[in-house]
């Protein structure tokens, strides 16, 4: 009897309903490998997992039939990792998923045409989202096919350069439920096509018209859209003042407007535009006309404005002061790379807007401690501060930031004078998640120790060319910030295996940039990657002590690796070939590795079927058989041939001085 009972309860999961397992599986999202291991546990888990899965990112389309047979409940298919999706694949998808499929991402795939899209559009009647960005070969026939997808709500057509007004016209008539459409870089579509979209698709919420050859003529009909919230007109050179004057009907629903890089819009044109869009909350005027009093006055109508981005504009004091006066409650201000931002101008805004949450003063080189002290006194609720290359701000300024702005989550101090004291002060910002300290030459391990002990929520740390950082500093960070997702220790020449191998403790690491760290060896790499199973990007350029011995464990553990740079390393054919087991490796850069042979490279390239982009030295172009290259290109891989001369590595301080010399030539 006892024995029988035991047999009955061999699998306790039989007692748990599928729904409960589903909700458990819902939580296993951080690492795709987890779900894989779960499904491989037993047959019932295998089926449960197959029934549960809604989202699938296939690595290659060859196995689609069997994969789609297994996963019957898929609603979202993401092909951004598979280099080659053909019409046949799309036909298979459309038959297997039919009306269940709601979302499809083909943004990185080529090789499909109107036929596949037609089959999708007719069979997958509930398709709501489709991303066709970068499908540069698609023509109007594809648009006609797409127009059959009546329920489409979101559509990305970025860089579909061959689709014309006629094609987009068909989409406009067919897909009347569209809520978002991106036509970025669609160079063949003009006013008529965009105008027709605006006329026929009344539900449009978001419209991305960046870098299109449109003029003001389509704007009136766009601004008549009742629900339009987000309009991007970046880089539309055809839009100029004359046309903006004709806008009569305002768009009451518009919340975000981006007219950056539109050099032909002057303050007059802008004021007629803002008159039509009074409920605007976010306005981007980057790289446009100078921010003068006239321009600032044109923003007077925008009482709801919360965010202003003026990146790259020439800014005057009057302009800044007027902006400060006319906007009621600014929470986000970006003056990145603005010329002419002075302490007075910045302070006039800071005084008025104490609720400022985000401030970007990158490369505002005239800013001094005066502004910083004002900032830290008035804007205490700041969460994001970007002040790269504010070289006049002294060490004391950063101490003030640490004292005043405790809520900082994002801080970019690249190329500044901050020292250990400053970092100690900043360690009070316990919510800090992104910290960039690149080219801060006054730092050393002591300061980093403060960050490591206090800022446990750190996700990203950039220590690019922080010459003073050694193993102990990095170790402090690794111990203190276990959630780290990105770390950049490029050109921190003193980092050795001792600390690098400890990176295994940061199991969430997705990006490791370890350029120019000659002391890191294969041993350290092997140790590190053993823990970093989520690693996606790895840069080992100029790590000359990394060789094949590091590649084999890397290929074993980091199954999610997408990008790797092995230039100047000591990897040979063997190491390169071992990377073939990385199922989703897409970008491979191998320059200046004199240990590679053409046949080895050829074998590695052939073995790695997921590659989409390979950077090689130009020499290999002649050495590799032409047919092989053709074959790889058909498989979806593109090549970049580089002919860079080998450069000797400079001392960090010399490097910075050289950089400054170059900058002075520019300015």
């Amino acid at each position, binding site marked *: 009897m006892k024995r029988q009972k035991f047999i009955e309860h061999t699998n306790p999961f039989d007692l748990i309903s599928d729904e409960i397992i589903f909700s458990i599986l819902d939580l296993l999202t951080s690492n795709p490998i987890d779900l894989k291991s779960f499904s491989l546990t037993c047959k019932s888990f295998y089926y449960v997992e197959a029934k549960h899965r809604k989202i699938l990112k296939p690595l290659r389309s060859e196995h689609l039939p069997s994969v789609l047979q297994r996963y019957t409940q898929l609603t979202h298919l993401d092909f951004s990792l598979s280099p080659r999706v053909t019409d046949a694949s799309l036909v298979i998808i459309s038959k297997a998923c039919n009306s269940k499929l709601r979302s499809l991402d083909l943004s990185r795939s080529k090789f499909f045409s109107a*036929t596949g899209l037609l089959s999708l559009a007719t069979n997958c009647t509930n398709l709501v989202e489709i991303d066709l960005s970068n499908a540069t070969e698609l*023509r109007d026939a594809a648009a006609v096919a797409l127009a059959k997808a009546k329920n489409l709500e979101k559509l990305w057509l970025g860089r579909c350069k061959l689709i014309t*007004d006629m094609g987009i016209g*068909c989409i406009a008539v067919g897909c009347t439920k569209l809520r978002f459409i991106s036509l970025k870089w669609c160079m063949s579509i003009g006013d*008529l096509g965009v105008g*027709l979209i605006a006329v026929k698709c009344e539900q449009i919420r978001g419209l991305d018209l960046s870098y299109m050859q449109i003029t003001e003529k389509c704007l009136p009909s766009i601004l008549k859209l009742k629900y339009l919230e987000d309009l991007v007109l970046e880089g539309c050179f055809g839009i100029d003042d004359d046309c903006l004057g004709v806008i009569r009907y305002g768009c009451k629903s518009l919340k975000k407007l981006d007219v950056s890089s539109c050099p032909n819009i002057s303050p007059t044109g802008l004021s007629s535009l803002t008159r039509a869009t009074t409920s605007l909350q976010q306005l981007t005027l980057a790289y446009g006309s100078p921010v003068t009093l006239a321009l600032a006055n044109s923003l007077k109508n925008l009482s709801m404005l919360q965010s202003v981005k003026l990146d790259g504009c020439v800014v005057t004091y009057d302009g800044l002061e007027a902006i400060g006066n006319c906007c009621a409650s600014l929470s986000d201000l970006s003056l990145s790379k603005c010329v002419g931002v002075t302490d007075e101008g910045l302070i006039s805004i800071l005084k008025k807007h104490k609720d400022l949450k985000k401030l970007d003063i990158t490369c505002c080189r005239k800013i001094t401690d005066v502004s910083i002290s004002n900032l830290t006194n008035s804007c205490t609720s700041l969460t994001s501060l970007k002040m790269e290359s504010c070289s006049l701000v002294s060490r004391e300024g950063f101490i003030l930031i640490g004292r005043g702005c405790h809520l900082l989550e994002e801080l970019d101090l690249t190329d500044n004078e901050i020292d250990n004291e400053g970092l100690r002060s900043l360690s009070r910002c316990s919510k800090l998640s992104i910290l960039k300290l690149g080219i801060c030459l006054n730092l050393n391990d002591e300061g980093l120790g403060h960050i490591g002990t206090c800022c446990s929520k750190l996700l990203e740390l950039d220590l690019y060319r922080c010459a003073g950082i050694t193993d102990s500093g990095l170790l402090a960070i690794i111990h203190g910030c276990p959630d780290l997702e990105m770390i950049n220790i490029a050109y921190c020449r003193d980092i050795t295996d001792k600390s690098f191998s400890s990176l295994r403790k940061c199991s969430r690491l997705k990006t490791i940039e370890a350029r120019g760290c000659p002391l890191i060896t294969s041993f350290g790499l092997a140790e590190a990657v053993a823990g970093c199973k989520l690693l996606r990007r790895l840069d080992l350029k100029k790590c000359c002590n990394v060789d094949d011995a590091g590649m084999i464990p890397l290929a074993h553990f980091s199954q999610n690796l997408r990008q790797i740079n092995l230039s100047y390393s000591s990897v040979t054919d063997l190491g390169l070939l071992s990377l073939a087991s990385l199922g989703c490796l897409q970008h491979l850069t191998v320059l200046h590795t004199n240990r590679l042979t053409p046949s080895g490279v050829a074998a590695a390239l052939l073995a790695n079927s997921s590659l989409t982009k390979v950077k090689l030295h130009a020499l290999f172009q002649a050495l590799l058989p032409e047919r092989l290259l053709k074959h790889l290109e058909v498989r979806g891989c593109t090549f970049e041939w580089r002919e860079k001369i080998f450069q000797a590595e400079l001392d960090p301080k010399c490097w910075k001085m050289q950089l400054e010399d170059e900058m002075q030539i520019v300015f």
Partner: protein
Amino acid sequence: MEPEDSLCSSEVWTKSSSFPNGNVQQPPQKWPDTSILDYAMDQPFQEFQEQTESKASLTCNPNQQIEILDKDSNQMNAALLASKIQDWDPRAMLNNLSFLEQKIHQLQELVHLIVGRRGQVFGRPDELVVQQQQLITADLTSIIVQLISTAGSLLPSVKHNLSAAVPPVGQLEPFDKVIFASGPGTNGGVQSQHGDGTKLPELPTQVDGSSKCGKEQNMTVEEHESKDEEDADEHENLPPGSYEILQLEKEEILAPHTHFCAICGKGFKRDANLRMHMRGHGDEYKTAAALAKPNKELGSETMLIKRYSCPFTGCKRNKDHKKFQPLKTILCVKNHYKRTHCDKSFTCSKCNSKKFSVIADLKTHEKHCGKDKWLCSCGTTFSRKDKLFGHIALFQGHTPAIPLDESKGATVSCDRGERYETTNKLGSINFSFGSIASGGSSVETIADAKGGVDDPLSYFSPLNFDSCNFGGFHEFPRPPFENTDNAFSFLIPGSGNYTQKSGAESSSNNLE
């Protein structure tokens, strides 16, 4: 004043001078529009009427005469009519001239010349009436014609071609005009004058029909040359009282000919053609003056501006419409009426899908047909992309149709996509064929316009249609039979495809 005296001295003159009054009272019953025309002329007469003593007694005469004419339509002779016209026209002209005296001095002299001539001529008409002989002498006709043209020009404008003191040669065309202007009086026809029995039954009807549409011939330029006039006045903003409104009946609008030969009754569309035709009737029509184009009047300030109303009730161009927008000229009326209220009976022989009601529109289209590369799913083609997109924006369900060759090059190996395009296109063409067929059938009974010119029967058509319902009337030729046949023959393969109208379905079948 000398001219007045000379005019009044002749009894015939005064007698006939009162005729217009009689006319003025009569027309409104039958021809509301002519009454307006006459009314316009009426005012200037008033001064003269006071001067003429015998006016009152004389006015009854014409009335009686006209009554007789109405009873038996063949009696009234054109000569009498012409003399009437001739009589009152110079008066009107003189009257007008006296109005314009201050402005145009030269005109007076020329009118005197006319008056002087008339004195000589008056003897002869009497002879002619008595003898009941042939047509008026060349002198008389030339003067008549001149007077007529003056009179005709008086309708739209006062200033006239006084250079035509030399008898103009385009006589008969203006002659017609005057007859038309006098409205019902013309019913009498030319019988007695011509004495030519064979043509008598035809002429009156002819004149009658044409009189309706020919009233404003002075103004009509070349028939089809300025077809945009209708659109030209779109934005004219005349205050409501500042112009007088004329309304032609649809029969008049649709009459094929507007110029008629006074001798043989043959109808023409253009006065120039009529003048060419007149050469065959005698040497007197071959003079340079007779062949010259009658001078166009310069327009007048004294006359009210004339605007036209479309007879179609409910039309925006109809005077009873709330937002009435008048039409500028007779030609505008004609083109507007045909375009808006008539079937489109002309089909393009190239594309077999576009149809027009105005032949000039067809010709314009045919020039560009085939060059239109912007195609809508409904089969309509456009020469300009913006026009296509405007069309698509306007109509629900219409989509741009991508040309076949483009979809061919579109994809590496997508023959299904092409097929989709093909079926789509065929289906749309089909659709338009269907409507052609229906349009064609309604036109079937109408004779060809060109044939009509030679065929005397066609002269009757306006009259014949006058009595019956004009419902499906078309003055213009229906499309050649070959074309309609073509359309139908296309329909057959087309309808085969029509069933699989949505290319998506067919191609999905292919996929499975």
